[in-house]
């Protein structure tokens, strides 16, 4: 059975910032737009976590909106 396509994600590098993660994940977009997208697609990190936006090594960080 082939694997169906699922929402693409990355994981943070050690001590990586949102800027860096957004730039490498969405290189074709202006940085501020890329960061806004990453924030909006990853509410578990940027909305529900305390402190907000703390990137952890184990995180799943989506680099596209929901697909299904």
């Amino acid at each position, binding site marked *: 059975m082939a694997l169906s396509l699922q929402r693409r994600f990355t994981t943070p590098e050690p001590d990586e910032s949102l800027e860096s993660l957004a730039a490498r994940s969405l290189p074709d977009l202006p940085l501020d737009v890329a960061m806004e997208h990453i924030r*909006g697609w990853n*509410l578990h990190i940027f*909305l*529900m976590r305390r402190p*907000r936006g703390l990137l952890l090594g184990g995180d799943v960080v989506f680099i596209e*909106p*929901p*697909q*299904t």
Partner: protein
Amino acid sequence: MKEAVVLAAEVAAGHDGEVDLVLTLSYENGVVGTVILDADTAFEIMQSCGATSSADLVGRAWHDILKGI
């Protein structure tokens, strides 16, 4: 690209016996999905966007709801 909009807001039981808020969103790409918020987060976003109840979130742009956070 269209804006993400809240289609519905319902409460549901969370794993730990607390009540969570389940928001159904229509995303900018047309996909409809759910976002589950814990109580602290849900109350915070309601306050920050001036919603007086969960029903008040329905129909709003997701971006506007999050603006105050």
